[in-house]
């Protein structure tokens, strides 16, 4: 189930006018299957009801302690309900009549499912009540806080805003470079060149971008296309079978956006690298490099340099800043000492005429 949104997450520039979308619901059965198979959380059903028709619509979880105690105002029943030690101990502590009533307080609502954590048990009588209401009940041995962390992360991922971007995503020295630019400018050709030099292709042409957290964008290809690529004049190529497993990967954080464009003498290209331009995708600002294409320019090598420069900056070294410091120091020295002329980098060449 997919909901298409226009408001959630804005993008600008070359990625504008693209709708953002996110799932509006996932079936409980899908959630449990993924928990078991992908996250390897041992979880088992305690009753047999059709969990494929019950839907999870929110990433948030709820522990229904107060609802069990009778306070059902503001009860967020539409969330996945977690019954941990506290809830189960509370039910045990009540006499049978009060226990049924407390449990009914929760299951009178159409809760998506109940999950017992820490290997807790549910009285057969209560389990029967849940089955009667068509509510699936599961049990896991994982303690509540740990389990909630794992489930929350999975649900956050499932309900994350997404957008498609027309571009090519390549992992260059471990840095995710998203190449964008108009059709036919040579994004795929640059990617092919990068792959030839040992870098890894994530997706060509259609990159699905997911906002994994407030500052993290993850890009991947689509299930259908994977690592197929079109090179004009050649047709469709399969990078995975041509270059092997080392040439591809399935997901990569997007760290720098490289926009290829035809050289425009009137455009303002950065000359020092001190401007720190960014582009916003799904409301996440990403460093943005505009790269004019001119004859004789090796875009592939420049992409490698962009990646290396990003790594230097990431580890705290900013070459443009460093150069600025040296320049300011020299200007100050000159003003102080009244020195003239431009100095050679080696003052005396000794007797080494190499």
């Amino acid at each position, binding site marked *: *189930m*997919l*909901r*298409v*949104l*226009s*408001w959630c997450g804005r993008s600008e520039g070359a990625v504008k*006018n*693209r*709708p*953002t*979308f996110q*799932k*509006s619901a*996932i*079936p409980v059965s*899908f959630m449990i299957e993924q928990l078991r198979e992908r996250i390897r959380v041992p979880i088992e059903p305690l009753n047999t009801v059709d969990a494929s028709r019950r839907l999870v619509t929110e990433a948030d979880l709820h522990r229904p302690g107060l609802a069990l105690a009778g306070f059902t105002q503001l009860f967020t029943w539409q969330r996945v309900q977690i019954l941990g030690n506290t809830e189960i101990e509370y039910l045990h502590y009540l006499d049978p009549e009060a226990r049924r009533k407390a449990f009914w307080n929760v299951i009178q609502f159409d809760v998506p499912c109940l999950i017992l954590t820490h290997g807790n048990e549910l009285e057969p009588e209560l389990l029967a009540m849940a089955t009667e209401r068509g509510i699936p009940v599961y049990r896991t041995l994982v303690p509540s806080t740990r389990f909630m962390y794992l489930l929350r992360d999975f649900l956050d991922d499932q309900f994350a805003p*997404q*957008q*498609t971007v*027309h571009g090519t995503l390549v992992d260059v020295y471990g840095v995710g470079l998203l190449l964008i630019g*108009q*059709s*036919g400018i040579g994004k795929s050709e640059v990617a092919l060149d990068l792959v030839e030099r040992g870098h890894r292709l994530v997706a*060509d*042409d*259609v990159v699905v971008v997911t906002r994994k957290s407030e500052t993290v964008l993850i890009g991947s290809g*689509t299930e*259908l*296309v994977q690592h*197929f*690529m*079109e090179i004009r004049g050649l047709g*469709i190529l399969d990078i995975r079978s041509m270059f092997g497993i080392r040439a591809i990967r399935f997901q990569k954080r997007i760290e720098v956006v490289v926009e290829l464009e035809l050289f425009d003498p009137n455009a303002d290209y950065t000359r020092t690298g001190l401007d720190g331009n960014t582009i916003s995708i799904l409301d996440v600002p990403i460093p943005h490099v505009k790269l004019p294409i001119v004859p004789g320019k090796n875009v592939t090598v420049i992409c490698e340099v962009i990646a290396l420069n990003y790594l230097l900056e990431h580890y705290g070294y900013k070459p443009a800043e460093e150069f600025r410091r040296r320049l300011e120091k020299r200007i100050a020295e000159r003003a102080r000492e009244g020195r003239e002329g431009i100095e050679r980098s080696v003052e005396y060449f000794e007797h080494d005429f190499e």
Partner: protein
Amino acid sequence: MHGLEDEPYYGIGQSGPKMKILEVEVKNRAGLHTRPAALLVKTASKFKSDITLLKDGFAVNAKSIIGVMTLAAEPGCRLTLQIEGPDEEEAAQTLGALFASGFGEE
């Protein structure tokens, strides 16, 4: 991803003021397979305008064959075309007619 329930909303209000928006239907029985996709891309590439195809929230560049094939558009499905640029009127007309003709297939 699971079956679609909600009517998709493409955030048309957000688009540029001059953009052309066109609803089209895939009419030929085989859907948007390789041949019609290639024909669509070839036709779209003749225009200067930016042409985007939308389906289920997925937006792809209509000038890219991989992009168009990503949609795996089945017969009878409806797509939205967003066209923006100097020749958008002409592009809308030509592409609209191409879809209407079922790409010359049954």
